[in-house]
């Protein structure tokens, strides 16, 4: 059995806490607030959809259009996570520390800016593109923190954030690192908005995960990072652990580029493998952070997958989706949801699935509708699924008091 990997720091930037205040994020989420509203960062007048969960650029300290917001979100969330863990940048063995970033879009907004200038026949500013590469955020964070063991970028669609944390967890368990900072980031841009609009996957108003009247997802944005260490290293420096990552797995549906396997084959396989990896019995799960996008297909297949993995226990476990509050933040989504699981363990409260208005017979589990619930969470499972049939699952356990 490998040694435990503990989480000692969390950092989140989301529409509910644009400045990165973790407690504000958690209080807003548990209060059932939503960050979804009219899109302001680009013109949606030509589209049939107009809502998303955005972070106002001014809240990020971005005054002009030249700085790519994803980079700033990641910088703030990463710095907050290290501060939370009481670790100063560069105050560790750099070659034994690494960064893993999950992202789908990287600096795509910078690419859009470059192409808009081209369209208007204006001079294109090549320096804008310095922010474009997907690996740019990982490189930036490695430079800023002093992590010199690795700077990995994983891009697995909407499972990116979960996979990033999973890969970091594995790097520690394999003895390859003593400190990992891992998470995800993505910022809304017109490219992704237009694509989901073309696929008719967006909602025109609210996101209603697992509700019979659900109409689709809303794009979201943000960043979340976790500081992870071997339990003995955290103990040696007197750090308090928020919880333990105990299992992770990724699995492919191998069915379709944009639609999930109807019975959640890949998601169930990932969850089963993650629980096996963590030595967790299915009936030990107290809370599931569902992917729950609010699209008809995702929520139905996820319900089936949970029944496959948990059996009868699926009807007893508290399950919630936070995408009604935060929209779908792509590469950041899985990382934000992992943070949610750890905070649920810390405080004994699970956030609600908001906008769950009409029970759906195809989604007949306990989705903690509309109000947060007090309950002990010792073991949590976080699920992510994405385009290309990507599926990932993380199993987490509370540290004994």
């Amino acid at each position, binding site marked *: 059995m490998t040694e435990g990997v503990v989480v000692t720091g969390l950092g989140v930037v989301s529409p509910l806490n644009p400045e990165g205040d973790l407690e504000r994020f958690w209080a807003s989420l548990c209060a059932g607030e939503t960050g979804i509203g009219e899109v302001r960062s680009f013109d949606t007048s030509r589209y049939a959809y107009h809502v998303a969960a955005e972070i106002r650029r001014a809240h990020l300290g971005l005054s002009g259009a030249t700085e790519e917001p994803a980079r700033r979100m990641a910088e703030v969330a990463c710095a907050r996570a290290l501060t939370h863990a009481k670790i100063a940048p560069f105050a560790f063995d750099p070659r034994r520390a690494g960064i893993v970033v999950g992202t789908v879009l990287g600096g795509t907004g910078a690419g859009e800016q470059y192409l808009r200038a081209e369209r208007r026949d204006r001079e294109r500013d090549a320096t804008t*593109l310095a922010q474009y590469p997907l690996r740019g955020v990982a490189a930036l964070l490695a430079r800023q923190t002093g992590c*010199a063991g*690795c700077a990995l970028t994983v891009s*697995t669609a909407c499972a990116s954030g979960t996979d990033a944390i999973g890969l970091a967890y594995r790097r520690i368990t394999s003895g390859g690192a003593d400190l990992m900072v891992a998470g995800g980031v993505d910022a809304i841009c017109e490219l992704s908005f*237009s694509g989901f609009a073309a696929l008719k996957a967006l909602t025109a108003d609210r996101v209603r995960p697992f509700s019979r009247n659900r109409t689709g997802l809303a794009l979201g944005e943000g960043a979340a990072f976790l500081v992870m260490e071997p339990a003995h290293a955290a103990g040696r420096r007197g750090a308090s652990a928020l919880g333990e990552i105990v299992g992770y797995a990724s699995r492919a549906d*191998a069915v379709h*580029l944009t639609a999930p396997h109807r019975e959640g084959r890949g998601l169930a396989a990932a969850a089963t493998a993650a629980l096996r990896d963590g030595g967790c019995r299915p009936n030990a799960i107290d809370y599931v952070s569902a992917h729950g996008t609010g699209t008809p297909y995702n929520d139905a297949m996820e319900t089936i997958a949970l029944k496959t993995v948990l059996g009868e226990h699926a009807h007893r476990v508290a399950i919630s989706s936070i995408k009604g509050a935060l929209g779908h933040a792509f590469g950041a989504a899985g990382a934000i949801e992992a943070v949610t699981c750890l905070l649920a363990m810390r405080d004994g409260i699970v956030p609600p699935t908001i906008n769950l208005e009409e029970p759906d017979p195809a989604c007949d589990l306990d989705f903690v509708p509309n109000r947060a619930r007090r309950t002990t969470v010792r073991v949590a499972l976080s699920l992510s699924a994405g*385009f*290309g049939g990507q599926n990932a699952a993380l199993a987490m356990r509370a540290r004994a008091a």
Partner: protein
Amino acid sequence: MSPPVRVSGIGIARTDGAGAEETAGVARRLSAVLAALSWHGTHGRLVHPIEEMALLAAHDALRRAGVRTPLGGEDIGVALGLEEGIDGIKAQYYRDILRDGPLGASPIVFPLTTPNTIAARISIALDLRGENLTLCAGTLSGAHALGLAMEMLRAGRMPVMLAGGATSVQGEFLDALSVAGGPEGGSPGCGACLFLLRFPASAAIRGEAGRLLGYAQAVGRDDVRAAIQACLQDAELAPAQVGSVHVAAAHESRSLVASLRGLGVGAPVVRSPSAGLHSASFPLAVAEALGQAADGSRGPALVVGSDCLVGAAAAIVHGDE
């Protein structure tokens, strides 16, 4: 010492610098593969050459290892390195929106604006339901994918991995990025190089094309030196045992040679002719090193690559005699 990871099959498909005859040969092979997989268009159609190259390379790697596809199981995972390969697709997709508004947004092209689509395409076509991960690291994308696959195999997380890199190098964004201090422009063209890797204790898969003895990466100051040093440690190899050095970078730098000599690696240094194929460059250099090392006269080969943003990587490989 960690037991070596076995290379059971290598698949390479590329069109960079290819003549009409070679390109036609690639098209014929692809057509035969798609027919063999009973590709009836139910999974969508291939819309970009990078999909074709990656699928062809994946299929060839599996075939050479004697794996029949479609597989239909979770025993084979995919780790694909890919970054700039989709830039041209993204740029064209967004140009269409700027020109035609929402009507310009093609639901067929849109999925290809995310890097993982290529690995997903492989998993769908060959029915590989194991782990599926896409790593983006510019010219080191393929290196990071190989390193991750080795880590997963050694840890027993997957018995068999299909790993490597794929790219479609298109001038425009890369040229602009190079002005901005980013990666240098590569060879125009498209290519993929994938290996079927297995851990020795895993299920019987035939095919022996060589061994991966070690891998490491590093970021920041002295990254090349740190990666080489850690890689030699991982392979438990003395610097003098390295028989040849293969550089997967567009230019053979003096600092690299100085690092090698400083570490005691005195082997001859050759620059990989495939260095311009960015995400595929490191795997292609590994394939070249395995081919050259197969005569057994030189001993293990060290493959070194670097990226302007995310550091350096090194691998030690040995061809089977």
